[in-house]
């Protein structure tokens, strides 16, 4: 598309975003304000992630876009097409082939490698937002490292429910300093945030914030000594590829209570099936289509 600059945004805007990214990398977990632009998709559809991806893309990159772990969900298809159209870059569904992965709500099952960038779409970057609605207050709390309110909230969860009742967007502490919202990934994915070989970037378009985890940053999910953090998932194996360790989606198959469990990460599942793994309901590519 020659009517638009490479990857849609003009170069001055990309430079502004890159500066914000550099600052975010320099201060892991700190939310850097940036002058988020209106994008041709609505706020809430991933405008922050799209802007971060646009600022990082080079013509040599190979992009993978997932939503809920899957490459074929509507929003993932739409964003992938957007960059094919405006940047003309190569795309892939294979995690290990991608140089940049934009994601909504998941971290791929396959370990990421050095040189890869994982871009998260973030709706509410502020982990303290629902404890304190005012941005002026929460920025002060971060500045003073005043996180008592969060621990009280987690404690109240335990008092009321016997465990911490946060299943996704589970708060983490970055390199012993900033409490960070990992975006609404299931807490199953939280351990993958820490010591990750790839650069992890978080973009919140509507809220105008970028934050980052440089490679091999230490990320700890908040918990208590007597109530340690547990990464939870459905207690099943994938019905297609048989993996008992991957995060699963529950798919309703009929109106009589029938259901199956399948890997949320479609590439992970397809790769396993291609190499001969099979679950309860078979595993070959053909049977799954």
């Amino acid at each position: 598309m020659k009517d638009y600059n490479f990857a849609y945004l003009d170069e001055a805007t990309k430079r502004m975003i890159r500066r914000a990214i550099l600052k975010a990398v320099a201060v892991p977990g700190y939310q850097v304000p940036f002058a988020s632009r209106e994008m041709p998709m609505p706020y809430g559809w991933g405008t922050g992630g799209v802007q971060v991806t646009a600022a990082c893309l080079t013509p040599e990159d190979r992009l993978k876009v997932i939503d809920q772990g899957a490459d074929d969900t509507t929003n993932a298809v739409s964003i992938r097409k957007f960059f094919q159209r405006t940047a003309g870059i190569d795309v892939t569904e294979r995690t290990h082939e991608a140089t940049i992965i934009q994601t909504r709500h998941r971290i791929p099952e396959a370990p990421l490698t050095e040189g890869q960038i994982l871009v998260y779409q973030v709706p509410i970057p502020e982990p303290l937002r629902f404890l304190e609605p005012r941005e002026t207050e929460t920025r002060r709390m971060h500045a003073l490292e005043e996180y008592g309110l969060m621990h009280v909230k987690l404690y109240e969860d335990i008092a009321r429910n016997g465990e911490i009742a946060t299943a996704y967007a589970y708060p983490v502490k970055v390199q012993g300093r900033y409490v960070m919202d990992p975006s609404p990934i299931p807490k199953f994915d939280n351990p993958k945030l820490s010591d990750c070989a790839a650069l992890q970037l978080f973009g919140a378009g509507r809220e105008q914030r970028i934050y980052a985890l440089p490679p091999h940053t230490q990320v700890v999910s908040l918990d208590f000594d007597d109530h340690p953090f547990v990464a939870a998932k459905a207690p099943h194996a994938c019905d297609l590829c048989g993996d008992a360790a991957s995060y699963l989606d529950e798919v309703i198959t009929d109106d009589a209570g029938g259901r199956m469990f399948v890997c949320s990460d479609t590439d992970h599942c397809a790769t396993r099936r291609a190499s001969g793994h099979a679950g309860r309901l078979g595993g070959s590519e053909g049977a799954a289509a």
Partner: protein
Amino acid sequence: MYVAVKGGEQAIDNAHAWLAESRRGDVAIPELSVAQIREQMALAVGRVMAEGSLYDADLAALAIKQARGDLIEAIFLIRAYRTTLPRFGASRPVDTGAMAAIRRISATYKDLPGGQVLGPTFDYTHRLLDFALAAEGAAESPAPQAAALGPVPRVTGFLDREGLIEPEPASDAPPPDLTREPLELPASRALRLQSLARGDEGFLLSLAYSSQRGFGRTHPFVGELRIGEVMVEVEIPELGLSVAIGAITLTECETVNQFTGSKTQPAQFTRGYGLVMGQSERKAIAMSLVDRALRWQELGEEDTGAPVQDQEFVLMHADNIQATGFLEHIKLPHYVDFQSELELVRRLRAGAAQEAAE
């Protein structure tokens, strides 16, 4: 077999094709031209330009056509297009005092220098459906030709001369730009006004209305409302002079509000200000009420806890593109998060059942 999330790509293509067909409607009916929308839907075009923050009537009309008349969607198209435009510079401040007004009224005076000029207003129409408009092709009776007003004096200027209204000191400081810098709170008045100028008309209307009904009351009078064209001038450094590059239509509202004062300081009226691109007096009036309500602190008024007094509440929620995006995104898939909640609830329930059994 496992088909629930497959076929996203084909589904999107089909949905877009259906959308295009629905947009066109019955092909036996002639298609609307962009020029027709620009000329005959001028107030919608004005709103799209104002909240899209881009003064281009043809693009706004195109956006309305493409959006099937959904104005927020049209505003969104304009905002997204605006993102891609290079910025060459900033104009000189426009002089609304020199406006060629087609409408100029004051509610605070029966008559005043320059006169009350109603212009093309709905104000005094009877809201009766005009079935003659349904019979297309009827020749319109031409309006009596009235030249736009030349520069007319400002009502606030009259009050200022007597010291009756708070002075507005002139400033040449470059204004902040919220399309280039993230909004930081607390925001200066200039930044607040900029945010309100592109804010959602409906949101500002309701906030202003709430202030009229007692939630942050400011007792406003419309000192003056004027609509018309102003020249846009750009300074060319190489030439050392400014050059007019065109004219834009603006709506300006200045309210005169209840006074402040104390034993040591004599009473003075205070100001609220609204300025909107295009012809949109509802928005301009609402904006001036909200602006005035947000100034409670500098004017030493009490915080009554009213939403309209809370600049974070007002400024963070005034943008309809941000609002509609976040609101509507909840229809996107969330099943991964839902799945994790499902597991949690089951686990909690199982735990509770076990406890009950013991």
